[in-house]
């Protein structure tokens, strides 16, 4: 006779194993998409415990991350390549690239090189909106130009 019912011990073991492993499997999955601008890059995005150490060009998305359930804004670092290029052109720091004067001709008065900052700077930003994610949910959050502000809450170096 075939025993149609699984052994009780195995069932109990399976329940215990699933309990032990299942808590974080129920965490919400979150994806963030860069919809800011063609010339804007974002990196080191974070949302409620999730961290994506990646650089996103316009239209690119993070991989789905299992974040803590709850509410948070999306935090990230932003680099505006267009603004950087314009500034360098104004300062004449890139050979062969310079600002144009009102006649559309190259401007022959570049800024003193000692006053130029050539270091690309990533600024801390966050979304203005807060998003909520619950257990077993899947969310796609888009970064849009009208929904971002500078993030002054980034923790500084605390020391030891």
């Amino acid at each position, binding site marked *: 006779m075939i025993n149609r019912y699984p052994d009780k011990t195995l069932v109990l073991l399976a329940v*215990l194993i699933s309990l032990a492993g299942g808590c974080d499997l129920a965490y919400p999955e979150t994806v963030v998409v860069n919809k800011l601008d063609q010339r804007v890059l974002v990196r080191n995005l974070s949302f409620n415990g999730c961290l994506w150490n990646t650089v996103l060009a316009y239209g690119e998305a993070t991989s789905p991350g299992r974040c803590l359930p*709850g509410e948070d804004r999306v935090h990230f670092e932003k680099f505006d390549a267009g603004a950087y290029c314009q500034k360098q052109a104004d300062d004449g720091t890139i050979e062969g690239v310079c600002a144009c004067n009102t006649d559309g001709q190259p401007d022959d008065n570049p800024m003193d090189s000692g006053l130029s900052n050539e270091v690309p700077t990533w600024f801390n930003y966050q979304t203005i909106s807060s998003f909520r994610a619950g257990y077993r949910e899947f969310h796609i959050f888009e970064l849009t130009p009208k929904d971002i502000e500078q993030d002054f809450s980034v923790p500084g170096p*605390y020391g*030891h």
Partner: protein
Amino acid sequence: MAVIIAFWIQFSLPAVPPAEEIPTQEIVVVAARLPGQDPSADSSQIDGQRLRRSARPSALEAIAQEAADVYVSSRGAGIHGIASGASGSINIRGLGGSPNTQVLVVEDDVPDYQGIFGHPIPDAYTPFLIEDVRVIKGGDSVLWGTNAMGGVILIKNRWLHRDGLEIMNDTGYGSYQSLRENAALLWRRGDWDIAGALSVLRTDGQRVGAGGVNVIGVVGARLRLRPELRLSLSNKLLHLSGGDPGPASHPNDDHWYDVWRDSLSLRLDYDGENYSLRLVPYFHIGIHRLYDGFYSQDYLGGGNLVCDFDLIEGLKLKLGAAGEWVDGLVEDRIAREHQPVDPSGNLSVYGQLTYTPAESLTFMAGARGMYHTSYGAIGLYKAGARWEFAQGFFLRSRLARNFRQPTLRELYLPFPTANPDLKPEYALNWDFGLAFERGHFSLSVSGFRTAAENLIKYFGAWPSAEVVNIDQITVWGISAQMALAKLGPLDVRLSGEWQDVGRYTRQNPEGRLTFTVDWLHTFGAHAIMATLSGEWVHGLYMGNYGRDPIPDVFYIDLSARYRYSPADARFVVEPYLVLANPLDRHYAYIKDYPMPGFHVLAGLMVKI
């Protein structure tokens, strides 16, 4: 500023015997609480077995569960961490330090703190070899010197009391890929005792960057040279690796730490006819590496010689001499910079006189004279009394002047800033209490006043932070504790605290409540145990001056154990299950470091 009269219920219950030692015939013991080294001190005694069976994930949190006036912060499933983002800060009656420099942990009469940072490491304690823990509220710098300012946590480890061998292994696995392995071996034969334990905790943590591995190994050997003369050697080696996960809104996955620490101590005990002598030299060394290039070696060396005399009937005298020295080196391996650090040390002589003119009345007075290489002569004192004015009713009171030397970090290291002109901190702590113990019931109430001066505080933020000695603060509070033992199958413990901490509110809660309900059912060689425990914390802030309030902490834990221990066999098998935070409460002790939601740990303990 609102002044809140605190109501604090103080724990003073006789230790409940371990479950496997409970006889089949019920016996109720009515007796006074063991007074410990200072009979007038307000203290909680916690049995090691309770700590091993606690649902709380670390030893310090398990101690805090047993006494509401001991607050310990947490950030996850068992790992407190090192440096930035670390939890495990201990606060007793308004004093804790930045962090834990005002609470001294003493393990087998050896003070335990780091040479540079001046505080114990919260992950360094495993309950597997602990016999019992006594928490002295109000501190005791007369007996223990620096750092014993707000409280002293005395840990006593186990030896076997008769010839034989005991092996215990506890393995657990649970959420977040958490693995706990604890093994202990105790052996006694003839003139020799051996005790050893290995404790491993490995977890991924409940979020990115919160995982880590803690490995602690302890070994001790004791030789009875003569019945009255014993020589012991003990060594603890620990390796902690993990990271700071950062705030949940800005997590880190690469802020790692890697710490090695070793503590070696020797101990000579001699029991004479009317006196006993104890000599304990010790040495601690630590090597810390952090993700940002930080590297340090720190050293703490010292020794303590204590003699206890029974002078005449009812008159006991304790005389002691102690010395300590701290030093270290610090460098930034990436920037290739060294931070200069000057060592410091102190020598002390101390004494405590205990006079018991009648069986129910005890007076105590003590003093310590210290010479510090940086601060010169320092005087400390204490006095107290304990009186059983009716059967089961006790009154006690104590006044103690305690002290803490500035740490080498506060003096010399820019984390975030330093001040070589810092002066020591002092506290004058006074407490009084009423306790009642009879049969299955005990209740105690204590009021306390902590007055501290020259407190060392950090102000501002990097890069414009400063550290200075401030003026006085005063903390008033009340604690109360109630216990119902062996109420049928139940043991119930309730502990509460309320205090007015003034303006220094950072990680210094106004109120705290802990509760534990144990249910035990035995039937022959079998026993089933279930425990419901929980905690409520109120008035928690991330900043001083009431800034950055943190929502009240509240959660419960459930645990269940089955024990099989045949009468004619010499083994115990005990599978267990811990359901932590089954209500899936979202809470945090540290702002933006959320605690885990509902999670599970299942394990098996075997003892032979």
